[in-house]
């Protein structure tokens, strides 16, 4: 007999992401992913000055502010056909890399580790054994007995006060929780340390962006960071060295803690490696440009189809027609007026809500497609594309994680193991390690370029008469983000943002092809239908970001999420 489980977080005023799964004989047989909120950025931007678009788009989503700002200025610059100065590229790149480090660290420790880590079990851990285990895995100086004893004492005190506070909503004692108490305690210790290091990474964004969230240093044509090495009010040597120090601290945490924890979790949950594969078409865009025009990049982008790495095709520039001409969105199963699959420049956004109907329309999210196919985006897509193209840092860090997890699990792990729920987590860590390295490289490039006497930060430009079109992409922490703009006589005539969670959380299309969340959930085991931890594991592994718009505190403590079994 099959059962329908609905997970419907009633966050804030409207819900955001609703997942329905049909469970049969202890496993997911079918799944539906539904965005429960309409975002009308296109309607808000029409008729405005394209120079202001980035200010508005970075308010689409409170957590992804930086990434929308970057994609937006790139889209307008692409439409205008202008190149930004090298300093502007490098300053943007350091912001991108630091923001990514912050975001990936938070995702693993604060937002998803508790799907795998049982906090209550950590109370049974021997802190000295925990320290011994940690010291056998990593040279990280903060794995000492002293540190582990202090964390255990803190956790014990917290629980004895009769409330778990931040940990109150976990599925503690769930049969799918498998880590030994010592590993759980180690994870809690690193959860606390991660709070410090994500903040350190984000300080770099604040130093260059003058504020985060919502950076203020961008402009269509460059950046607003005046460079004068001797002036205390501008970007100077003092600030640059502070940035370097912060990046080095974040890099050490990623390489000595985050990656090691990932390998350990993957090894101890090796039984989970077969689950969560779903859509194995992958899309990533290149990022961290090394030249003014955006034709040489430090992070690779491209496509892979059917999980076959030999099908890799590279995306080579900010203006590559292979990306520009192959993206479309389908509204066949979404709550919009019409029934089409169109290129973003040709889209309209006319909401038309009908009831939730899993056999008809059931989401506010459109279904993006590349050459008509659903694509998985995110760190895994970039790592696989990089691996297939032989990108040296990606290959080196990916092999290290696979070898470490493999030796702990006493199994040989190949990149094929990455097509999975755990693989998405591993890829995020691999990407963070690569980013940490590249952030410091781009810092060095910036210092060298300024050292040559180049202080240019802005390219002047003018709007042409008539219509121009542009697109700008950015490989954001959650994956490929693209903004598409049509400008008529200097005014926005159309604007579409195709965001990573649209690619991953989108519904079926006109041909009935499932989106990546939906496909990734099929086959997942469900030990307890009342507590569908396994569904959360797979959904969280994509790093969902749909709840982008409304922010209302619910002080009466009304139910904020519910699990319904039908």
């Amino acid at each position, binding site marked *: 007999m099959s059962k329908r489980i609905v997970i419907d*977080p*009633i*966050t804030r*005023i409207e819900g*955001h992401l609703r997942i329905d799964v049909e469970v049969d004989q202890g496993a997911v047989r079918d799944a539906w992913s539904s965005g429960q909120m309409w975002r009308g*950025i296109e309607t*808000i931007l029409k*008729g*405005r*000055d*394209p*120079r*202001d678009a980035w*200010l*508005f788009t970075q*308010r689409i989503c*409170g*957590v992804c*502010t930086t990434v929308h700002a970057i994609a937006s200025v790139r889209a307008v610059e692409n439409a205008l056909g202008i190149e930004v100065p090298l300093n502007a590229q490098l300053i943007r790149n350091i912001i991108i890399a630091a923001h990514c480090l912050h975001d990936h660290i*938070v995702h693993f420790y604060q*937002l998803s580790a508790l799907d795998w880590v049982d906090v209550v079990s950590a109370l049974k851990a021997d802190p000295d054994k925990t320290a011994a285990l940690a010291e056998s895995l990593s040279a990280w100086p903060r794995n000492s007995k002293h540190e582990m004893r202090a964390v255990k004492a*803190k956790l014990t005190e917290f629980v004895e006060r009769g409330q778990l*506070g*931040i*940990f109150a*909503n976990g599925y503690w004692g769930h049969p799918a929780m498998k880590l030994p108490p010592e590993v759980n305690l180690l994870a809690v210790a690193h959860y*606390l340390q991660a*709070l410090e290091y994500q903040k350190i990474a*984000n*300080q770099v964004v*604040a130093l260059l*962006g003058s*504020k*985060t*969230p*919502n950076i*203020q240093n961008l*402009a269509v044509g460059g950046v607003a960071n005046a460079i004068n090495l001797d002036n205390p009010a501008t970007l100077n040597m003092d600030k640059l060295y502070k940035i370097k120090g912060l990046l080095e601290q974040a890099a050490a945490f990623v390489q000595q803690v985050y990656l090691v924890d990932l390998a350990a979790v993957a090894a101890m949950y090796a039984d989970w490696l077969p689950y969560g594969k779903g859509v194995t078409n992958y899309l990533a865009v290149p990022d961290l440009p090394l030249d003014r025009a955006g034709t040489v990049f430090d992070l690779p982008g491209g496509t892979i189809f059917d999980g076959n790495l030999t099908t890799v095709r590279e995306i080579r520039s900010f203006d590559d027609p292979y990306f520009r001409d192959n993206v479309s969105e389908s509204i066949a199963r979404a709550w919009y007026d019409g029934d089409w699959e169109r290129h973003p420049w040709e889209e309209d956004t006319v909401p038309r809500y009908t009831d939730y109907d899993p056999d008809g329309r059931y989401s506010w999210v459109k279904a993006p497609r590349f050459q008509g196919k659903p694509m998985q985006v995110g760190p895994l897509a970039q790592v696989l594309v990089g691996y297939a193209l032989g990108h040296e840092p990606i290959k080196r860090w990916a092999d290290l994680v696979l070898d470490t997890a493999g030796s702990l699990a006493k199994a040989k792990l190949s990149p094929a193991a990455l097509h999975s729920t755990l693989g998405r987590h591993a890829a995020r860590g691999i990407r963070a390690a690569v980013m940490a390295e590249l952030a410091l490289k781009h810092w060095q490039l910036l210092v060298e370029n300024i050292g040559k006497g180049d202080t240019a930060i802005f390219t*002047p430009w*003018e709007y042409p008469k008539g219509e121009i079109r542009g697109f700008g992409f950015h490989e954001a922490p959650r994956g490929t983000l693209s903004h598409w703009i049509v400008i008529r*006589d*200097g005014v926005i005539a159309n604007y579409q943002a195709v965001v990573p969670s649209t690619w991953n959380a989108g519904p079926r299309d006109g041909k009935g092809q499932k989106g990546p969340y939906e496909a990734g959930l099929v086959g997942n085991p469900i030990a307890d239908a009342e507590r569908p931890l396994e569904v959360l594991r797979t*959904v*969280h592994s994509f790093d*969902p970001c*749909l*709840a*982008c*718009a*409304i*922010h*209302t*505190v*619910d*002080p*009466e*403590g009304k139910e*904020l*999420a519910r*699990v319904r079994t039908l």
Partner: protein
Amino acid sequence: MNEESRSGDPPAHRRVAVVGLGNVLMGDDGFGPFVVRQFQARYDYPEWVSATDLGTPGLDLVPFIDDATAVIVVDTVKLDEPPGTLRLYQRDQLLAAPRGQRFSPHDAGLVETLQMLEFSGGGPREVQLVGVVPESCAPRPGLSASARAAAELALEAVAEQLRRLGVPLNDRSQPRDPGIWWEQPAAGGGRGR
């Protein structure tokens, strides 16, 4: 389009933080940012007080409040009361609210941030939430009439709380432009500076 730049300074000097939360693109959800920008424009306040429009920061709220002794938050609240109703909440009332299942980074809001800081052993001792019941949070920038009317009261409530905390607060001799850029009508094109 000017935002408060002092918030980018190192946090060492900051002891009292005023933060406006909410999405400025979504009608009354922009209440918090609106009120905080009015506050910045009207009052002169010392270096150890920060006032920041933070949008919907999720856990990015942490660095703005973790070293503060007191925090005043302006936000919308979900209550069964008429639109424009203002309510004041204390830290313990917020922490007592039961939490549900979290899906995405955005669901980590004010309460989860406070809980996380509590577990890590830090965070502000004193938290006041000045909340308004929104009339409409449809995707269109700008406040409804009821929220706009409540904004003046909220501004006074923020000032009153700060004075109670011993913050010297003076009207600026020349009030600044609050810079509510999201309420500006679409103006059309131009050229790069």
